[in-house]
């Protein structure tokens, strides 16, 4: 692969995913509205698509206020971290054979590392705002994301055992005969739940629970800094959906009448839809319920899944 090709792939991935993140503003609002028997934004432009433009312009022209009591540099740094870490995570996803930004042999570990760095945006944003609601949001976010990172990593180890590789391209190739959702259903469920918690989306949006913490860690943010958190959240949804597809639903694999990239994005959009459907339908658990659910139910379950997967893999080998 030449350098030029590589640069085109990087730019393409950036372009596609930033546009998906922006477009999700519209998708989410329309879908939520439809599921609540409303119509949603349908005035600006065809099907209301220009709401994306309107929202972006609004965010750009809003006053970008830094509170005098905030820690200025950390306050500015926090929203940058969330977008950067998620975009880095997108680098290892194979969209089609050969179309991948960084074909690392520890790709899965890289993804976990980047998603674990995403915690800093919440923690630092909440701390730098110097506001008690933000701080509470940051505390909740930190403990929730550290806890669920553990299950996320462990739930993926079953996949690694079966495909015998950390490289995502190899993992997709290993699903040629059978998607891992068939052999790793428990791993999939736990990964998806952990992904919800990791992107702090509803129903696990405890760090920003607006009915109790105003907006949690981003209470003090306005203008494009808030926009960065916003975009980071949507990018996070896309990342987790893309990872779910890659790890459990055969990535680009699919019947040959559509090109691999199309299959990949069709599956990804399906999971983005599930994310939004969960937001529309499920209530938010209490903080201690969430933590108890994680440590008391998901952790034993994921360890059991790992044990059984390992045993069966050994049994099949011998």
């Amino acid at each position, binding site marked *: 692969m030449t350098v030029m090709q590589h640069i085109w792939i990087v730019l393409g991935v950036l372009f596609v995913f930033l546009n998906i993140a922006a477009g999700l503003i519209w998708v989410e609002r329309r879908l939520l509205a439809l599921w609540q028997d409303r119509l949603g934004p349908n005035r600006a432009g065809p099907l209301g698509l220009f709401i994306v433009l309107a929202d972006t312009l609004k965010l750009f022209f809003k006053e970008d206020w830094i509170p005098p009591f905030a820690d200025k540099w950390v306050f500015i*740094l926090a929203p940058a971290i969330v977008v950067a870490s998620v975009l880095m995570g997108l680098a290892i996803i194979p969209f089609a054979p050969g179309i991948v930004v960084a074909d690392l042999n*520890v790709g899965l*570990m890289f993804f976990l*590392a980047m998603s*674990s*760095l995403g915690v800093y945006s919440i*923690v630092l944003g909440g701390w730098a705002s110097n506001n008690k609601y933000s701080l509470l949001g940051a505390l909740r976010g*930190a403990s929730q994301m550290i806890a669920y990172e553990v299950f996320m*990593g462990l739930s993926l180890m079953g996949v690694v055992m079966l495909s015998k590789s950390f490289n995502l391209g190899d993992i997709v190739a290993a699903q040629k005969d059978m998607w891992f959702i068939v052999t790793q259903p428990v791993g999939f469920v736990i990964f998806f739940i952990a992904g919800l918690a990791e992107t702090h989306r509803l129903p696990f949006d405890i760090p920003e629970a607006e009915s109790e913490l105003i907006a949690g860690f981003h209470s003090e943010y306005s203008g494009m800094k808030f926009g960065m958190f916003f975009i980071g959240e949507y990018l996070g949804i896309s990342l987790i959906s893309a990872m779910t597809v890659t790890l459990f639903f055969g990535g680009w694999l699919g019947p040959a009448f559509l090109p691999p990239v199309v299959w990949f994005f069709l599956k990804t959009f399906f999971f983005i839809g599930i994310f939004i459907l969960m937001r529309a339908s499920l209530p938010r658990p209490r903080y201690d319920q969430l933590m108890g659910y994680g440590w008391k139910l998901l952790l034993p379950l994921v360890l059991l899944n790992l044990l059984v997967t390992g045993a069966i893999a050994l049994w099949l080998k011998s």
Partner: protein
Amino acid sequence: MSLVFYISSFIAILSTIMVITRYQPIHALLYLVVSFLALAVTFLSLGAPFAAALQVIVYAGAIVVLFIFVVMMLNLGKQTAQQEKEWLQLRAWLGPSILSLVLLAEMAVLLLQDDPTGMPAAVVTPKQVSLSLYGEYIIAVELVGFLLMTGIVGAAHIGKHKKKSLHRFLQTYPNLN
């Protein structure tokens, strides 16, 4: 690859110095994160991607977050920064810095040797790491497992709810916790 190594190790040293000299604890921890990330890149340049990823996941992603968590809970203000400023005096940092200078000199000597032993070119794959962990060093892994188990049991014991003494008004619903 050696240029990457030198740049990242320089960043690691610089950010570690910043960790020591910051008065504001959160800023110090931020530099600590940068230091860990630089260390991860150093591992990567030495051909150990697995160790690099673990460095980021475990140290930068979890442990420093817990540090920040604790510092946030302590609600340290300007007074603490002032206190830190007073503590950071010559006699406090002279000893450690002399010792680390000795280490630096040793490393310089090693690097400037005609036949440098470091910098292996081969990449260590995750498979090799796990094979050596569960083959050669199985006893060490088991011992570490025991140690971690002790930690978990201790944490569970500390975190266990004590016998509750509820007010009589609240005892109507014994399952409400």
